[in-house]
């Protein structure tokens, strides 16, 4: 199924691209159909998996414990194979990817006039790469998808972006490329030295527990860490993000914020920490400090922006700091919180970018100084914006709150001071979120302004995302149940957790 899903999206892209010759409206329908088909394929496959399999602890090194697993020889000379595996975590990420993929297509429904076929193709190819990243178990294959994801995204920004798109696209490309190169070096080092005198293998299962120790281990780990933190993005490697987000077309921003950033978090959780348990735990205080600084730094800068999309971009930097904190705190609460943050932030930020795109499409500006009082002109948009603004500031009842609460609760057992510092982010988030509402929808309205309120298509997308956030906020258990076996498989890999990390948090014993 996994290969089929990847091929489906790849092929869908080609068809969408070529269909433009017949009718410029055809590509978006084909893209939509492809994503829906993909979702159906995924759902029909998982409905065929016996229910109790979902409760089995995924021991990463054992093929039979994955929900889905497939392996085909590719380059046997170097131990490279087409090895794909899906567990609860990958499944969750796939659902998020396909759902937000559909949202991205909806959000750019009427926006693209230039080469719509190639646009939709790039969109689908980005999804292809992302799905590959979430499924690949062979590190060489993983790297391939990591790069595949990058190029269509680069094109989306460079071709269909806004006024300063060239700069933003190049910055995005260089940051990701350079850090990706470091990861490639680390992958090769790991594969070669992990082999010892046996055969070289790039397989995740084989490489677990084979990391070099000491300084070499730390350096190799840093290669992975950099690649993933740039993508996350973590402070201070985040500076590509505000530019890329601001310049990307709406669908590009939705994909970037909603899904691409999550590949960084996924990489840390799946590869970086489990492959290098020792180095990661040594490095944890630094990573957590970067997370905390990112939370506050992002929030402070978000408040200073006058560009709607830039503000939301910095809020992403802030929110992803919680993911970094949660991952390196490495106990059940914090890890589940980090995963929840990946999902909830994906949805809430995608919605805010869709809002930004809708406003830009209608008002031809992202400058909030030229907005104000829009609630008067478009109350439906105002209500939606208010919902996602308060979701973003972590209102209980929405997924973002569950995520941030669990991360901080888990972190408290590890480091109360770090928790206190990170909790300042709860205040700063309120400051920028409410300021966003003030500058756009509140204040003195221009009663002459013509502003088309959300139509059915847009309202539909918004309502789905609102429902998702409320569901995640009030009954998040299905998500936790899905990922719990994965975490139970991963957590024992870290054996040398320092005493403080073990903590006395309930269920936090690693």
């Amino acid at each position: 199924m996994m290969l089929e899903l990847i091929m489906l999206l790849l092929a869908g892209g080609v068809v969408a691209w070529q269909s433009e010759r017949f009718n410029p409206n055809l590509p978006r329908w084909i893209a939509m159909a492809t994503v829906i088909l993909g979702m159906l394929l995924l759902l029909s496959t998982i409905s065929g998996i016996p229910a109790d399999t979902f409760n089995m602890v995924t021991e990463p090194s054992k093929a039979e414990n994955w929900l889905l697993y497939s392996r085909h020889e590719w380059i046997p000379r170097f131990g490279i194979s087409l090895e794909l595996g899906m567990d609860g975590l990958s499944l969750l990420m796939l659902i998020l990817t396909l759902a937000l993929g559909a949202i991205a297509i909806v959000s750019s429904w009427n926006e693209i006039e230039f080469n719509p076929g190639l646009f939709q193709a790039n969109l689908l190819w980005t999804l292809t790469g992302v799905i590959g990243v979430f499924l690949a178990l062979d590190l060489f294959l993983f790297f391939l998808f990591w790069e595949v994801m990058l190029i269509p995204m680069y094109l989306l920004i460079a071709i269909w972006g806004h006024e300063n798109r060239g700069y933003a696209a190049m910055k995005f490309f260089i940051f990701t490329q350079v850090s990706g190169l470091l990861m490639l070096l680390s992958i090769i080092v790991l594969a070669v030295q992990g082999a010892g005198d046996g055969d070289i293998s790039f397989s995740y299962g084989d490489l677990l527990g084979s990391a070099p120790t000491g300084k070499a281990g730390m350096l190799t780990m840093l290669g992975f860490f950099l690649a993933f933190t740039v993508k996350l993005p973590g402070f201070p490697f985040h500076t590509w993000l505000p530019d890329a987000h601001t310049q990307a077309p709406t669908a590009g921003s939705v994909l970037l914020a909603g899904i691409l950033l999550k590949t960084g978090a996924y990489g840390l959780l799946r590869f970086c920490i489990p492959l290098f348990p020792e180095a990661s735990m040594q490095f944890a205080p630094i990573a957590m400090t970067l997370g905390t600084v990112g939370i506050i730094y992002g929030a402070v800068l978000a408040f200073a922006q006058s560009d709607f999309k830039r503000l939301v971009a910095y809020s992403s930097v802030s929110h992803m700091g919680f993911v970094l904190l949660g991952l390196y705190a490495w106990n059940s609460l914090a890890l589940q919180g980090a995963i929840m943050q990946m999902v909830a932030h994906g949805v809430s930020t995608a919605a805010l970018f869709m809002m930004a795109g809708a406003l830009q499409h209608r008002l031809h500006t992202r400058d909030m100084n030229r907005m104000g009082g829009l609630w008067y002109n478009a109350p439906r948009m105002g209500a939606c914006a208010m919902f996602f603004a308060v979701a973003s500031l972590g209102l209980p009842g929405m997924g973002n709150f569950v995520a941030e609460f669990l991360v901080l609760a888990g972190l408290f057992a590890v480091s109360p001071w770090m928790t206190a510092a990170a909790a300042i982010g709860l205040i700063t988030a309120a400051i920028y979120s409410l300021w966003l509402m003030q500058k756009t929808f509140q204040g003195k309205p221009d009663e002459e302004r013509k502003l088309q309120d959300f139509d059915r298509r847009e309202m539909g997308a918004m309502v789905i995302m609102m429902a998702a956030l409320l569901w995640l906020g009030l009954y998040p258990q299905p998500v936790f149940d899905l990922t719990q076996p994965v975490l139970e498989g991963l957590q024992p890999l870290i054996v040398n957790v320092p005493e403080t990390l073990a903590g006395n948090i309930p269920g936090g014993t690693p």
Partner: protein
Amino acid sequence: MNTIALIPLFPLLSATLLIMSAGRMPRHIAATIGAGSVGLSAICVALLARDFLADGQVLELTLWTWMSVGDFAPRIAFYIDGLSIVMMSVITGVGFLIHLYSIEFMWEDESICRYFTYMNLFVAAMLLLVMADNLLLLYLGWEGVGVCSYLLVGFWYKDSANGAAARKAFIVTRIGDTAMALGLFLLLTELGTLDIQPMMIAANSQWQTGDALPVLATALLLGGAVGKSAQLPLHTWLPDAMAGPTPVSALIHAATMVTAGVYLIARTYGLFLLAPPTMEAVAWIGLATLLIAGFTALAQNDIKRILAYSTISQIGYMFLALGVGAFASGIFHLMTHAFFKALLFLAAGAVIHCLHHEHNIFRMGGLRTRLPIVFLSFFIGSAALAALPFTSGFYSKDAILLSAWALEDIGPWLWAGGLLGALLTSIYSFRLVFIVFFGEAKTEPDRQPGWKMAGPLLLLCLLSLVGGWFALPLAGVFPAAAEHTVNHAVEWISIGTPLLGLLLAYLMFLGGQLSVDKMVASSGARALRDFWFSGWRIDQLYDVLWVTPYKKISYWMRNEPVDAIYNGIVAANQWAHHRLLVLQNGELRWYATTMVVGLILLLAVMLRNAP
């Protein structure tokens, strides 16, 4: 599913309906649903209270497990004891009257649908807050009422000043909420649960009275309480929150939400009893707040701001009660305050409504004969606020002062401070009555309140008078207070002080025997009055300390300082690029020369290394 779950569900459903209508619902239907849903909840609460008074059975209801991660499994579950019943009765009872009043007050507003949506959401969140069986669900209600308060303070969004007031309310309380969240993390980490009753049992078995951990945990919870209940030092948001419609001020910023902090401390009293230093801090915070707010109220001109400072001051009394361990008295005062302060706000709203949105008390006057029902309401409300004998406020405030007196060491000091506060309360309350309702008329009312406004006013009048006779079912909730004998002199002084205040207010503002103008003739006195008028310049202090620096730092950093590193790398690359570019100049001679030089160097190196 039984009636307990229906109580918060009615307003929630109503809000959902109103949202789904997207503002297109006719206003009479919107108003009926909006007020009716709260009325239905009130009926359910009344039925529940009747059963509870009959058998005293604590009710528990679990709807579903919210989440389950490791051993942390908070539920969406309710725990209904006497304390919850009192709170629910106040919320739905007073809430319903205020909703009814709102129909008339907001009738001409174009966004009445949005108004009732927010109000219903607020009631639902507030009910969750007081019904929650665990601190996480309580926190959901806690933040929920915060957002509704934000939405309602900024209800008239077209004026940016309202938006600023709304943001201030949310952000200042959020500072307290963050402290509270840290408190929850601490409790969860140390005690392993957030379910309130098991948590207090665990705390009692794990901690000794006076240990550092309970002190820290309760101090953090106190942070949340101080923010929400507008106590020092986080009280500055409440006077500004008066920017919202007046019924909102009555419901949220007088009767219910602002007392959530009092409820929180009372609800987790088991923790606070383990932390005597925090308890003492609660008492001193309450005392300082009630005095500072009392002095400030004396100098205000805006009818709503006077009432706002008075609210801050009265919640100070509740904190004082909690701090001296008289939890039941604190809750008693919470209830009577809800009656008379809602009454005062609604009466003030009626004045404002009938006087073309006039807020300045010095442009009112002589309304006693022109708005008789409003005058009656205001007079009874003020009497109860000032704790004149036999009003509801008298019983509750007297109980607090006597409990304070009975405390060892600091007791008499707290009592004396509270007494001074009572004097101030009485003076500013009757200053308001005398200036607004007596003397010559300065603005003529253009209408009279209809039955939807007058009805709630009269009912609240009744409650403000007889509310002190209710026996609250709190016996099973808090540990029994020690019987203390109080000497009669203390009791008489407590009774006499408000009367003295009334007399002073009469002499200053009606009789004219004492002239305020003469009192503030000297520059020192004027400075003092301005100081009080500004709310002790605390807002200016926070501006200098926090707001301006945050804005400045944020502004300086707006263009991404971290990018300087990457721009530096780019610049270094470009510099090297330009240096190296010189080598590639297209001249054959130059290439030949460099090749020869390179060859010679290479040979030299090889020769040197040759054995």
